Each structure stands twice: as structure tokens, then as C-alpha cells.
């Protein structure tokens, strides 16, 4: 992978995926990325790395791993830290990505058993995508809530679900529905949890010559027709201020340690958030948000949400590229307002 300051182009990212032949029993492939190894069996994904002169291992439920991996792939390693659980995750360095095991787990790190390795983002992404393709069985959608998808994540390899993991992606320049911008979701059905959400559209009365120039849409209708959970997508762009609402059901598949302040506005129903320290994982707060509540998520925490009823959440991000450095250096305080 070539960067501007190095002249020699490396091999294509897709050719650098290190995968084994399918296992003779489970038919899943094993993968390697640097010193990390990844393998799965009927129930678990096992992540391996070296520390203190010995091979270390961590195990997680395969469905939880795949749900987290799906978000990392769909969001291009997202903002900041994507913790798959208390042990393993990735940290976006924007062009580079850090994979870590135990680094942000206080006990493991103090015991010298943690490990961190950095990669070119495109190379690491190709490995993640290959794992997702190989390990997601037919009938399992890692974007769906458990009630909506099958339990075929378990067991030996049975087909795949490429359509689910490579869904059409939305890119919004200004607002959905504007000509030339991302489409509305009129072709998608209303989710079972939102059949009582009004589907009416704003009434636009344009003067002659201004037809098509007044722009509005039903945001709640748009969200009611989302076919994925815990997947923010942009619905308004006000310079670097982005509204990224999403529909949430069950558990946020990652524990997100943002590298900047972000805000939540609960549009409907409720979500409870477990908040812990970004560095150590020690619990700091629990935030129960109900419809109309607004809360900041500071830049020095990690959070994970729980929602029994599918709910609509507005995630509000500041997309400025220089923010991670400003927060990390202490030039910006980790909380948004002092009062």
C-alpha cells in the first residue's frame, strides 16, 4: 500500500489475505493478520496472539464476533475504538488501524499479556471482509436483531450470506430524497416493530418556478423502514455536523470508545447505556435515555447500548478530521460543555 511519502507501491490488499484451506471438520478457514490468528468452530471464534513468550488466546461467541466484525467492516473501522468485547478490538488511526488484544483490559495489560499491532487499513479490511464472508452462514444476518434472523450462525459451515453482509450502502451529501442525493427507503417494508409509525410525508406547496426546490421528508418513516440495527447513516449534513440516526434493538454489538465527543438524542422508546472508562474498562455510569432525552458521550469513555424494543436513536457526530489529535493531546477536554 503506497502512501504519498513512500514511492514504492505494495502488493494489492486483496492478495495479502492469509487464509488457510477449509478445516476438514468445520469447513471454516483460519486467518492470520500479522501476529494475530483467527479461527472459528461451531460456537466460538478464537483469537490468538503472542505475549510473554507464549501464545495467548481469547474466545468469544461466534455470533457476537460476527456482529461486531460486521460493524467494523461496514463502518470502515468507524471512529476511535471498536471493542468487540472487553479484550479484543480495533482502533482507527485513519489510514492505519490498530488491532489489540487485552490492551484496554486493565488486568491483562498490567500482567503484560496484551498485544497491539498496526496495519494499513485497506489490507486489514480485506482480511476482515474475508473472515465475514467465510464465517457467516446462510440464514444468519449479522446486521439483524436476534429475533429477526436465524440461529444458523452456530454449527459447521453451511453456505454464506453475502447479500446480507454486502448490502447497498447509503452516502448522503446533504439530505436523503434531494435529487442526486441518497434515496428514501420507500421500497423497503416497515419493520415489524414500527408498524404504528405514521408514514405520511410533509406537505410541500411550491410556488411556480420552485417546484422541486423545497426539500423535506419523514425522518421517522425513513427510520421505520431500516432493515438493519445499530448502523448509523447520515440524514443531514450541516458542514461537519452530521445527523446519523439509526434503529436499535438488542445490544450494540461493539463497545464503542469514540475518539471525540458524540451526542445521542433518543427519538423513540428507550435505550440503556453502560458507560465505562475507555482506557481501563472500569464502570463509570449508566445512562437510561427515553424519548426526547439528549446526552453527550464524552471522549474518554466507551459505551454499549441495550434496547428491548426497537428504538430510533439520533447519533450526532462532528466529523472534523483533526478532533482525535485535539482530544488525545488534551487541547480539548473530553466533555463538551463546562457549567
Amino acid at each position, binding site marked *: 500500500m503506497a*502512501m504519498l511519502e513512500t514511492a514504492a507501491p505494495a502488493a494489492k490488499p486483496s492478495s495479502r489475505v492469509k487464509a488457510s484451506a477449509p478445516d476438514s471438520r468445520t469447513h471454516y478457514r483460519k486467518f492470520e493478520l500479522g501476529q494475530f490468528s483467527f479461527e472459528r468452530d461451531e460456537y466460538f471464534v478464537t483469537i490468538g496472539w503472542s505475549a510473554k513468550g507464549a501464545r495467548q488466546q481469547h474466545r468469544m461467541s461466534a455470533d457476537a464476533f460476527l456482529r461486531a466484525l460486521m460493524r467494523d467492516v461496514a463502518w470502515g473501522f468507524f471512529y476511535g475504538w471498536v471493542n468487540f468485547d472487553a479484550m479484543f478490538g480495533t482502533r*482507527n488511526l485513519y*489510514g492505519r488501524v490498530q488491532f489489540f488484544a487485552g490492551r484496554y483490559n486493565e488486568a491483562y495489560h498490567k500482567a503484560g499479556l496484551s498485544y497491539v499491532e498496526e496495519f494499513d487499513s485497506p489490507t486489514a479490511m480485506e482480511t476482515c471482509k474475508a473472515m465475514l464472508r467465510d464465517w457467516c452462514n446462510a440464514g444468519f444476518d449479522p446486521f439483524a436483531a436476534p429475533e429477526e434472523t436465524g440461529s444458523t450462525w452456530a454449527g459447521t459451515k453451511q453456505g454464506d450470506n453475502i447479500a446480507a453482509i454486502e448490502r447497498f450502502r447509503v452516502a448522503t451529501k446533504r439530505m436523503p430524497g434531494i435529487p442526486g442525493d441518497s434515496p428514501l427507503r420507500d421500497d423497503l417494508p416497515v419493520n415489524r416493530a414500527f408498524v404504528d409509525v405514521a408514514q405520511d410525508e410533509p406537505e410541500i406547496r411550491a410556488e411556480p418556478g420552485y417546484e422541486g426546490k423545497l426539500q423535506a421528508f419523514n425522518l421517522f418513516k425513513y427510520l421505520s423502514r431500516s432493515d438493519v440495527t445499530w448502523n448509523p447513516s447520515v440524514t443531514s*449534513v450541516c458542514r461537519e455536523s452530521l445527523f446519523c440516526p439509526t434503529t436499535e434493538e438488542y445490544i450494540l454489538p461493539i463497545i464503542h470508545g469514540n475518539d471525540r465527543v458524540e451526542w445521542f438524542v433518543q427519538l423513540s422508546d428507550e435505550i440503556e447505556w453502560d458507560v465505562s472508562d475507555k482506557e481501563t474498562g472500569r464502570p463509570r455510569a449508566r445512562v437510561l435515555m427515553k424519548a426526547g432525552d439528549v446526552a453527550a458521550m464524552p471522549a474518554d469513555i466507551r459505551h454499549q447500548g441495550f434496547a428491548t424494543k426497537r428504538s430510533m436513536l439520533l447519533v450526532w457526530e462532528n466529523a472534523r478530521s483533526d478532533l482525535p489529535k485535539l482530544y488525545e493531546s488534551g487541547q480539548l477536554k473530553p466533555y463538551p460543555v463546562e457549567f
Partner: protein
Amino acid sequence: MRTAAAPAGVGGRRAAQPDTPMMLQSTEDPAWRERDFAPEPGTRVCSVEDVPDGMAKEFLFGEGRQAFRLLILRSGSRVFGYVNRCPHFSVPLNVEPDRFTLFAHEHIYCSTHCAMFRFEDGYCEDGPCAGASLEAVALEVNAEGVRIALR
């Protein structure tokens, strides 16, 4: 790796005449002209050699965070201009000045979330905005260098 066919009119070679500009990008969305500090047609940007071969360089017009950010990609004698703004989250493709993630001559990635764009037309082949494109800015090359194409 499949190679995308260059759209008609892009990257064509013809005998250069001293004062005859070579149009190097024809599929332009003129919406970029409405942006703050958008450079005027005919504005000279740089010499071809200012952009390392196979690489990318950014040129700013105006000041502050609303400055117009022009991204130029170069492959040999061909240069391709785009607004430096990823359609995924409307952020520049680079997080640090002139530091880009790319596979020389072929693809440039958005450093924020790994969207992968083709050099020759800015089409996103993979990543979180697959199917979208960078906003193209038509450029011309003549004896004086690279300039914003005349309308």
C-alpha cells in the same frame, strides 16, 4: 484486479499544441462551482510534475475550514481533479496535509473509513459508499501546466 475502462474523453493522448489545452476530464458535476471559494475556470493550479506520478496532492483555495479543497491525482501525463470530500461522511480523504492512502495509479482510499475510489473517474468501487463518486472537477493541461477547465 479488473481495470475499469476509462470513460470516453478521459485521458486521451493527442499531439500537444502549445496553446491548445488538453481536456482531461469530461464527466464533471458542475455543483462544485457553487461551493465556497471554488476556483474560477482557467485558474492555474500547478505543473503536472508538482503531483508525483501515481500519487495525489491537495490544493487549497480560500482560507479557513471552508476553503475549497481540490484533490489532483496523476498517472503519467494524465491528471484527474476532484473535490476532496468523501461522499460517505463528507470529510476530506486525508486527515493530515498531503498524506493519502492509495494504491499508486489506480485507487485512492478515504483515510477515515476506507472507501476506495478509482483514479480515473472517482467512482467508489468498495467501502461504505460503494456506488457513489467523488465530485469531478474538469482540468486542462497546456504548456503552462494544469488549470481548471474553461466552461
